[in-house]
């Protein structure tokens, strides 16, 4: 987790809010650093995390996690982290016939109508186990990312249904939180992705949007991050608040600064 981002979001692992849906969005850049941030943040906060990792392999997240100070292998062994490795499982699902329904069953179907097996996997992973005496604080679902499901033949409505079911279970019933990454394809006229993005934007409490700079690639400023707080949980809180920062990704950290205030420029 990045301490500067925690300051911007005004949270710490001890005081993390529950029952929230956080939407991560990236446009013309790679927003995966946000996924790594939240993964290490919630592991540090002693939450039980279910990570649906569809884009990269486990070792990738592990290497980055070690740089950020959490060990995914240890978390997995302790039972704190349940990880669905999409790439490895896809090879299993695709080439070997499965007896019981697999969370990635939709890979074998022409038009996947529903993501129910995936939802059942999440439900199973995060359900409270009675034998543990509440070791973990609250469950968290992290998805990286939802746009790839559209590439794999799942319809936008099916993905929205999946998110809705997960929210109902994780955020409302189990009082946990949910974080998901969606790509913003901008002018690529990807209607399904736009439906997904707009639908999720309306449902989320917090939106973090990483964009590349309009002027192109820059060595010192890698992009711009917009933080939008929607739906404040307390009715008396202020209305929507939005802040914009620019960032630079370094080896183990991401530094944030106000627009135009990059140390390289000043």
């Amino acid at each position: 987790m990045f301490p500067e981002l925690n300051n911007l979001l005004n949270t710490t692992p001890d005081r993390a809010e529950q029952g929230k849906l956080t939407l991560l969005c990236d446009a013309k850049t790679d927003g995966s650093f946000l996924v790594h941030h939240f993964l290490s943040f919630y592991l540090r906060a002693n939450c039980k995390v279910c990570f649906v990792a569809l884009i990269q392999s486990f070792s990738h997240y592990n290497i980055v996690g070690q740089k950020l100070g959490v060990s995914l292998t240890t978390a997995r062994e302790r039972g704190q982290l349940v990880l669905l490795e999409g790439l490895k499982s896809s090879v299993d699902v695709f080439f070997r016939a499965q007896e019981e329904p697999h969370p990635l069953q939709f890979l074998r179907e022409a038009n996947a109508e529903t993501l129910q097996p995936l939802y059942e996997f999440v439900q199973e992973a995060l359900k409270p186990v009675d034998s543990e005496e509440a070791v973990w604080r609250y469950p968290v679902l992290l998805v990286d990312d939802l746009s790839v499901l559209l590439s794999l033949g799942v319809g936008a409505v099916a993905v929205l249904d999946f998110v809705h079911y997960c929210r109902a279970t994780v955020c409302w019933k189990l009082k946990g939180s949910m974080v998901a990454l969606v790509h913003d394809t901008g002018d690529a006229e990807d209607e399904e992705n736009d439906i997904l993005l707009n639908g999720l934007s309306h449902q989320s409490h917090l939106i973090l949007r990483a964009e590349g700079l309009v002027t192109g690639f820059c060595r010192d400023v890698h992009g711009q991050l917009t933080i939008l707080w929607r739906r404040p949980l307390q009715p008396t809180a202020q209305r929507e608040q939005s802040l914009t920062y620019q960032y630079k990704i370094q080896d183990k950290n991401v530094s944030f600064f106000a627009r135009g205030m990059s140390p390289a420029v000043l």
Partner: protein
Amino acid sequence: MAAVETCGTGAGGTGFMAAATSKNNVTGFQRKGPRAGGTDSSGSRLVSIAGTRPSVRNGQLLVSTGLPALDQLLGGGLAVGTVLLIEEDKYNIYSPLLFKYFLAEGIISRHTLLVASAKEDPADILQELPAPFLDDNCKKEFDEDTCNHKTPEPNIEMKIAWRYQLLPKMEAGPVSSSRFGHYYDVSKRIPQELLEASKWHGFFLPEKLSLSLKVEHCSLTHGYLKLLNFIQSIIYEEGFDGSNPQKKQKNILRIGIQNLGSPLWGDDICCTENCNNSHSLTKFLYVLRGLLRTSLSACVITVPSHLIQNKAVIARVTNLSDTVVGLESFIGSEKETNPLYKDYHVLPWKPLKTEQLI
């Protein structure tokens, strides 16, 4: 900490695209020790494979694309376990050249090749590979080895440095070139001896299509399905995914797929905007990515993206690849007469997308 992992754990990790000038890379220096794996319980030792080198940024294993300039653009080379997508230029002149450089580099480095095409027979593609520029050392060894290929080594005992007697003798192949990245002479063909000494598998779609269609996976185009099964069988049978631990020498599988997405593969994304099986190519790329991440292989795919009508599909295909390089040829455009570009034929785009690791 985990520098380079062998194929048992999966070649994960990605390179960091940023300034060539380094930032605080405390972890840039990776110690390669017997416990380099970290995640693998069998304590996998770091084995150095010919034609590869670890990245200086994060210790990831890299192979050369055959063009040292492209290697530099990619940050040292192509990472093992990733896909390089080349968006073809309009008249398809330069992308086959990049494709051939990649394959030729594989032959020189003694990697195993897998060539897939729907247009040309892979054997013909391999015949047309460019010849490498070998410097004098390599040429001398090459000549010597072809002569002394069969004579047994005389058993000379070392008298002074007798400890070195115990070390294994270095195996010199037909081209014992341990360099990373070579230069090629496009006007000459690769020597037949090199081709014959190399190991390659070809996938020529018209030969592989059979009439029996198993209707199980109706989501993928038949050609893509056959290709995926072929790749998976090669990876499994030859042990690139670590399934045969008794194999003594680890090697890299270089996969080259030409003109993926073109109508010759049976896909219609280049024909119409609202295509029926628009998910075929993206699903193929996803499963291919899964296969690559769990094996010691690197893949170069050329895609005629200028023919794809649906911009959304291009965006999705780009997102599913690890590195994308686009080629824009100057032929026929006004840039050809622009004096600024008079020495160049092709403008490679800045990598549209490269992997980032924090």
